[in-house]
């Protein structure tokens, strides 16, 4: 059994151990930022919805991470996450219906061309 160098051992330990809270938060933040970016710059309405999903999931990840980190919260974070998932589903249902309706009337899903609410 070859002796494992301490640095490698340390790395392996880190791999198998629970990642710290910051990791989850950073991943969540990145997910959110990517989502926000996409929601702001993409023209295709369907893609925008996907990006919104990304943002929602970034938030969900954060909620769940905090739920684990703060056991005294009584699982409130997890239940919130479930709530958010449910609402996200509803939102997608309504949103996609709108997108379909827009597509039927205008033969396009590009949000730049749907500006009839201009003041």
């Amino acid at each position: 059994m070859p002796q494992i160098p301490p640095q490698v051992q340390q790395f392996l330990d880190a791999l198998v151990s629970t990642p710290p809270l910051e990791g989850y938060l950073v991943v969540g933040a990145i997910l959110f930022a990517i989502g926000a970016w996409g929601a702001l710059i993409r023209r295709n309405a369907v893609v925008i919805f996907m990006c919104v999903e990304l943002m929602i999931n970034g938030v969900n990840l954060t909620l769940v991470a905090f739920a684990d980190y703060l056991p005294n919260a009584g699982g409130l974070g997890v239940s919130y996450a479930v709530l958010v998932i449910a609402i996200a589903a509803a939102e997608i249902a309504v949103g996609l219906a709108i997108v379909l309706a827009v597509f039927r009337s205008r033969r396009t899903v590009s949000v730049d061309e749907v500006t009839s609410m201009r003041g």
Partner: protein
Amino acid sequence: MQTVGQQLIITAIPTLPALVFLVLVLAGRLLKENAQYVAILGVTISLVFSVFALLFVAGIIPGGGAPIEFSVNWIDLGLGGSFPMGVYIDPLAAVMLVVVSFVSLMIQLYSGAFMEGDKRFAWYYAILNLFTASMLGLVLAPNFIELYVFWELVGLCSYLLVGHWFEKPSARDAAIKAFVVTRIGDAGLFVGIIIFWATTGSTAFTDISLAAQSGFIGGSLFTTAVILVFVGAVGKSAQFPLHVWLPDAMEGPTPVSALIHAATMVAAGVYLVARTYDIFVQSPTAMLVVAYIGGFTALMAATMALVKKDIKRVIAYSTVSQLGYMMLGLGLGNYTAGIFHLYNHAFFKALLFLCAGSIIYAMDSYNLFDMGGLRRRMPITFWTMIIAGLSLSGIFPLSGFWSKDAIIASAYDEHYYLLYGMALITVFLTAFYIFRAIFLAFTGEPRTAPASEAVESPGIMTGPMMILAFFSIVSGWAGIPEGFGLPIYDYFGAFVQPSEFAVSTLNIEQPAFSFVIGGISFVAALLGIGLAYTLYVAQPERAGALAARFSWLHTFLDKGWYFDALYGATFVRAAMWLGRATRGFDRDIIGGIVRDVGRGALGTGGLLQRLQSGAVQNYALFILLSVLVIGVIVGAQYAVLVVGLIALVTITAFAVGSRL
């Protein structure tokens, strides 16, 4: 004490005409000319009830003999006091009730013919009844607040009736003038009431009198308050210097003038002084003011009446003058005489106006110099007007003699020789101007075609005139002084007396009847009639010559001593200027601010409109940016967070850049 049923009867006196008003206002269009029957029914019942109140107070009805008094609490301020609504009928109020409802009934009978065919016939009757109701309510009031409510209603009704023919600009102006001028007096009255209320905590006449006796209010403040109350009376009763509205009020229908002059409106001022007599007697200064204003007004108005061409204006100035007599009587402390004159005056003045109305009805002109020779064509009008004129002049034994003589005798007995002289000259002038009008209208040859074709008015008009003529002769016989030697009891003098308190405060002996004083004023009146006969019947050319000889005096009198011009140049002008300034302020400053605020909102909206691009992603961007800004502000203390957010903002800025 009176029973509940009797209280209901008393309450019905002003309520019935008020109900008639409501009925006529609501159903006037349906009733049309039938409105008069509703009105006459209501006021007849009021008259019957008023007579009941008089008999009750006089003690003829069992259980009576004392003033009727009852009230309910109207506004209760707890510790701050309370304002009751009630009824107080002493002999003074009882007499007034009967006079007001009687004269009102006569005038409503008469109006049926006079106003026939008027397009606002029912409305006219409605207001006539509201007028009567207000005056009856005013008479019943036991405190200042209740009195003030009815006082204002009376003013409103006179405004509406004077302006009944508001299509005519002169009628409209006269109505406004009547309203505004009396409002000046009302403002004084209101301030007086507030002073009394602030110092004594009560508005009831008796309470204020008692409070003044026990020293809660006194000195100059008390005198001021009393004089302010008198200012109210001056405005309503058209005394100098607020007399200018009454002659102009002749623009209303003639029966209305009769009502205003005889029973309602102008009597209210005299009645107010009489009602608050216990308060007035406590201020000798105020009493003197009342006496001198009254005496001066009597003389001044009589001179103005001398040269008027309009028959109604002659009678109008005569009213101002006679009201001056009443004020003079009250101010001199001869309460009974003042009220006695008010009561007699109601009959003969109403009659004079109805006679004038009859002439106007016959020939559709107000100008005395259009008339002439009407004696044969309108005999009833002629004889009733002669009776009214004799009564007004104070010719023995008609009613005017008794009351006027009592007032003049008071002035002499109390050594106010100036006032006595003014009153005596006024007697002479009164007889002259009223007989000038009568001679011009009825004697000689007709001056115009309508005058030569005039016919006597219908029976519904001459009937009330004859009834009033009867009262113009006999009403004074109720108060023949004992010193005269006739075996007739002085009912009026015994019935309408000042309170014991007023008598003891004034401490003056009421004058016994003097044949010398009475004889002098009688002779003065006869001289006046004689002069009128000389100038207008015997030698009519002399009148014109005199007028030409003293044309400056003629113009001065005809213009009413230039009071209208004076007020026009000062108060009216100042008020107009103030009005224009206010309008300018409102239009330019207030309106300007409002306009600018509106314009600013519009401009800001225009700017913000550009943000409303219709592109959803821009909105999302704004939301995000806003959240970031809020985050920066809220989390400013966390430097790390701030740095992170700035990074995000930068990223977003790039995002925006790539989008736009």
